[in-house]
């Protein structure tokens, strides 16, 4: 059946059709929807693991255990999973194991732009690179065949423009793939030096065999066109080049490691000029050059940064780009923002008011680093908020500083808890703020060990963050309400005084996930003095009218967290159902202001009458 699927949906569908029974991942853009879609098939036991290393070890165990297994992660996730990756290359699999690495050229939602094709070379593993959702579907199935025939994990490298692109995919029925036998194999699976030394030559031999396979594999192909220009391309870059230069010849590599160079040598003889197009680093280009194959143009023209496009390929290789329309107007940015009512807004506001140094981490709350909250000094990688804080307090020992780090619950389980144990072990005095919203929100609300439910929707034990922190040896652990700035500040003030590692758990379910909708708030424009305290928390529901110098609240967006009213020093913001109470408060406020004004006028009058009173 023909259907339109995203690359991620196509990968999940292909896994289903290939008879996969175990699928594992940790969520990460642009890979997340792969496992979300695997979870829709009853035949696949799908799970979110706490991090990518655990996920790949689960996957490796499942493959050794005889089940066809899929493991998915974003590019930086493979850094975390690199340890099992390199050794699984030695042990091989039993049933097929396909590892999807979803790279993010242009860093649409990532902290770096690494090219994970380097991992295939470093771990000596085969890598396939589809160029579209349809190919992603086909390549997953091919990857399982290669994995089992050559007894190796197979890497499938996709990029954002494949994962989140959609295309027409021809789906099929699920193949019946029985569970393979499991037999103990000491020499193959116990990687003691004595065994690993015997496995390494097999890895090298496998690489030679795989390179040979590339010559006849349908994953690689030559498309004959004009003799003037020939493009060597892999991944979605092929599609960009094909649209930019439909008349050219193409050597399309789908099987990009180990690279079969006989094809490239043949192609070189077919064309006058040979250009290489690839997203990321010059991996194909350098492999060709190292084999003595002349490349006329490549990264010197397309550049190393961002993602390619039809226009970039046109420009790089001498074609004109159409002129688009232009505006002289300064179009204001529309950056992503924390949602109205977000449980992260209050704690970062409190930390800002406390003038703390805050090391941050990866999640929605990284947005608190942006204006107007601007309260985060670092964001490096998953879990680094805690460990980097240890380094910070060690480096600046004895300095008076309100040192804190902020980390989400999912990120804490991923790789924060190890840092916290380290902080206790090395007695590093700072406050770890754990943002307990019960869900992995940034990637679209995936369950985690703090949810009480797993990917399959089954009820599971909900890990208790407070007890966990205490079990790690943290003496001072407090829990605060994410919608109460005063309480959070008070608690933080207490914690600044501890000369020990301490933990503050900030509690409130993610408003979008839990669909929290409390009674909204309203601005009494009569009382509003236009001081902008309420807009400093960066809530999308609070709007400031510059001309009128008044704030207002969008009643549709407001979820009633009350943070803006907590920020207001003039009693001008009230809950819409508290009109009567507010009327009294407003009356008192008006009276107070009138008295203050009268007093000021009186003083002014006195001053005017008294002549020279003050200093000039």
């Amino acid at each position: 059946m023909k259907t339109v699927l995203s690359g991620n949906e196509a990968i999940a569908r292909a896994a289903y059709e290939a008879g996969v029974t175990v699928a594992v991942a940790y969520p990460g853009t642009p890979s997340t929807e792969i496992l979300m879609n695997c979870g829709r098939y009853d035949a696949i036991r799908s799970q979110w693991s706490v991090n990518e290393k655990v996920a790949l070890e689960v996957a490796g165990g499942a493959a050794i255990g005889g089940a066809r297994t899929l493991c998915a992660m974003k590019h930086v996730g493979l850094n975390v999973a690199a340890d099992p990756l390199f050794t699984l290359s030695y042990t091989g699999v039993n049933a097929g194991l396909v590892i999807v690495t979803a790279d993010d050229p242009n860093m649409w939602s990532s902290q770096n732009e690494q090219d994970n094709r380097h991992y295939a070379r470093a771990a000596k593993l085969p890598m396939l690179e589809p160029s579209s959702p349809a190919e992603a579907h086909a390549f997953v199935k091919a990857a399982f065949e290669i994995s089992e025939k050559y007894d190796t994990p197979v890497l499938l490298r996709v990029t954002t423009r494949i994962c989140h692109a959609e295309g027409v995919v021809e789906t099929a029925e699920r193949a019946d793939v029985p569970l393979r036998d499991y037999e103990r194999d000491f020499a193959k699976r116990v990687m003691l030096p004595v065994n690993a030394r015997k496995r390494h030559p097999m890895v090298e031999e496998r690489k030679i065999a795989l390179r040979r396979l590339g010559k006849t594999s349908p994953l690689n192909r030559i498309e004959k066109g004009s003799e003037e220009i020939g493009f060597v391309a892999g991944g979605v870059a092929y599609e960009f080049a094909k649209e930019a230069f439909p008349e050219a010849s193409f050597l399309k590599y789908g099987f990009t490691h180990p690279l079969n160079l006989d094809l490239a040598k043949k192609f070189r003889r077919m064309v006058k000029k040979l250009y290489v197009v690839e997203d990321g680093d010059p991996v194909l280009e350098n492999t060709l050059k190292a084999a003595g194959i002349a490349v006329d143009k490549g990264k010197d023209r397309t550049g190393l940064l961002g993602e390619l496009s039809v226009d970039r390929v046109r420009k790089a290789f001498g074609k004109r780009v159409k002129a688009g329309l232009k505006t002289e107007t300064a179009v204001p940015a529309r950056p992503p923002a924390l949602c109205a009512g977000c449980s992260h807004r209050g704690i970062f506001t409190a930390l800002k008011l406390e003038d703390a140094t805050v090391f941050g981490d990866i999640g929605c709350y990284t947005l608190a680093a942006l204006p107007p909250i601007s309260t985060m000094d670092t964001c490096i990688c998953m879990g680094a908020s805690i460990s980097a804080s240890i380094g910070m307090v060690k480096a600046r020992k004895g300095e008076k500083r309100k040192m804190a780090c902020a980390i989400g619950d999912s990120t804490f389980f991923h790789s924060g808890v190890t840092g916290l144990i380290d902080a206790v072990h090395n007695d590093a005095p700072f406050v770890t703020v754990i943002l307990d919203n019960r869900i992995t929100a940034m990637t679209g609300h995936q369950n985690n060990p703090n949810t009480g439910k797993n990917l399959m929707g089954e009820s599971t034990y909900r890990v208790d963050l407070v007890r966990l922190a205490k079990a790690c040896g943290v003496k001072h652990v407090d829990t605060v309400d994410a919608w109460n700035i005063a309480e959070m500040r008070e608690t933080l003030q207490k914690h600044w005084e501890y000369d020990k590692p301490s933990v503050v758990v900030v509690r409130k379910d993610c408003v979008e996930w839990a669909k929290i909708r409390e009674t909204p708030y309203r601005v009494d424009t009569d009382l509003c003095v236009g001081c902008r305290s309420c807009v400093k928390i960066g809530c999308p529901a609070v709007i400031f009218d510059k001309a009128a110098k008044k704030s207002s609240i969008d009643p549709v967006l407001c979820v009633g967290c009350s943070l803006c009213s907590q920020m207001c020093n003039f009693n001008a913001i009230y809950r819409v159902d508290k009109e009567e109470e507010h009327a009294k408060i407003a009356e008192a406020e008006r009276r107070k202001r009138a008295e203050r004004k009268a007093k000021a006028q009186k003083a002014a009058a006195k001053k005017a009458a008294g002549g020279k009173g003050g200093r000039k």
Partner: protein
Amino acid sequence: MSGKTTNVLVVGVGGQGIILAGEILSMVALNAGFDVKKSEVHGMAQRGGSVNSQIRFGETVHSPTIPQGETDILLAFEKLEALRWLPLCNRNTVAIVNDQKIHSLTTATGLQDYPEGVSGELATHFKNLHLLPAAEIARELGNIRVVNVILLGVMAGRMDFPREAWTDALKKRLPPKLVELNLEAFRRGYERA
């Protein structure tokens, strides 16, 4: 519409239902026998920010993204977003724009100004501009969330696919209890086209 690839650019603000509008169009194009490609960006880039969906269909479509100046139809759910995406459009692009102003965090907090006269400027760029108050129509229908389907209706009225192809796709894609409301929203848009 055969031979050449048709490029549709749907833009707006996160949460406006841009993704759904794109999905319906790609279903309709697929059912008409076209090759279809579509591109979106999720994750960090999406949270309340500027969102776009690029849909391309034709005999064979390669790139999932639209090259500069090649948009045939621009469907903008918010007028400032139409301005933001001008580089992908040309003078002859059919521009269907919701005449609605939605603040960004930077304009809401007064860090930047929401420009004046956006609608007027759009008229100077496009020979074929259809500006409509989709939010008002949606409010009349009692649900602000149907802005996307009203705009989809306008676009459908400007394209060659049969009307039933669109309504069938809507019926297939939407939960049953929302079908009636959305078909009415679609009709309102379609008849304004």
